[in-house]
């Protein structure tokens, strides 16, 4: 298991991996928003948590198809299925590797980029915490979508469409947590629901994605 995690991290960080891509995309979206919306700090402050969350979600989508597609293409997935590892564990490790290389870096730089959007001071720690709690669900749900579409050439479009509705609860609760914290309102309810979505995904997705993989390898 740890060998698989280590290999996937190494693959993502070396040339041709998806590591820089998501981060750069996140940076570009967040930098462009003030140019598009205009320098009105009041407007920017209001939309900042939502913009950060949407940008994080889109950056996450960008690298999802790499989770299983590359392993499928070069035959490693067949070998992994035959290996003495539970396929559910393989899915969980691959989702974890995806989160460590996309969700976690996004979470870390989001409060810094919040400065560009005039993110209210009290919201900044909650943008960080909501992303920290919410982005694992994005990687897990994405792994499920990737498992469903593995083997489809140029399956990225189908994958995005499949995963989009699954991302909506996380987006709503995540952005709500951060924006309510910025306005000084109670944010614990959406924050708890955000955590609930992630825990539910962590409990169910490995089994669902493993089942989808087994069907797709036929």
């Amino acid at each position, binding site marked *: 298991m740890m060998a698989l995690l280590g290999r996937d991290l190494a693959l993502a960080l070396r040339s*041709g991996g998806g590591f820089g891509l998501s981060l750069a995309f996140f940076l570009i979206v967040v930098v462009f928003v003030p140019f598009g919306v205009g320098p009105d700090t009041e407007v920017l402050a209001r939309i900042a948590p939502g913009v950060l969350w949407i940008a994080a979600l889109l950056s996450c989508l960008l690298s999802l198809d790499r989770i299983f597609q590359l392993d499928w293409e070069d035959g490693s997935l067949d070998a992994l299925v035959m290996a003495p590892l539970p396929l559910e564990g393989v899915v969980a490790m691959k989702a974890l590797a995806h989160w460590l290389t996309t969700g976690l870096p996004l979470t870390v730089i989001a409060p810094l980029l919040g400065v560009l959007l005039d993110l209210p001071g009290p919201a900044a720690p909650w943008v960080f915490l909501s992303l920290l709690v919410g982005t694992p669900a994005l990687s897990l749900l994405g792994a499920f979508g990737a498992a469903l579409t593995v083997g489809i050439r140029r399956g990225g479009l189908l994958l995005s469409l499949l995963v989009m509705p699954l991302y909506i609860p996380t987006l709503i609760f995540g952005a709500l947590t951060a924006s309510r914290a910025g306005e000084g309102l109670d944010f614990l309810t959406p924050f708890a629901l955000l955590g609930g979505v992630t825990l539910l995904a962590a409990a169910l997705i490995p089994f669902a994605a493993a089942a989808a993989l087994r069907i797709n390898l036929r």
Partner: protein
Amino acid sequence: MTALELAPYRDAAPLEVRDLACRRGERLILEGVEFSVPPGRALILRAPNGAGKTTLLRAVARLTPPVRGTISLSPERMTWFGHADGVKAQLTVTENLDFWARVHGSDTIAPALAAFRLEDLADRPAAYLSAGQRRRLGLARLLVARRPVWLLDEPTVSLDSATVATFARVVGAHLAAGGLALIATHIPLGLDEEDVLDVTPFRARENAERAHDPFLDAGFAPMAGARDGTAQDGETRP
């Protein structure tokens, strides 16, 4: 060339396949496949392209669950090696092999590197290997997995004749250690312990695929059976 010796496999058992039917996608490709491979022997699958060699190997590996039939050994005792060799271009030769060794709980990759003459390339990223070197690295996975049944689909593609001989020696050592192998290949390996099976006679009849339509299996099986006279046994006995 030094002789290659592998540690004997524990609890060697024959691979017996009875009445196996397998499909690719929704199409039934082979049915009634029967063969038996005792430990220490290799069975070479011969047939023209598209006859179902890969499908048969994938069914034996349970990568594609068979439609029906019995296979005596569980997939935990098998290693699969297909057209794609599972080599990651961004990792070095050692890293590639080390990963599979750790997955399979082996402690050393040195014998596998030596057997396929990869020692000099150990630190080279797999992206800079030639097709044949890459193939050898893929095949080296068989040795770190340490499983008694090898399922090999066209293992000699892009190997030169010297490497084919090296590979044949590795397979020979595997057989001598009590392992067995099922190999789909067009190139004769020249093993002493090989039998040949032609899969062409097991090709499924054209109308047989209808027998495994899930809709027919569920409710309309008796009707369909009466109409076209095919067997309705859609169950898989693993």
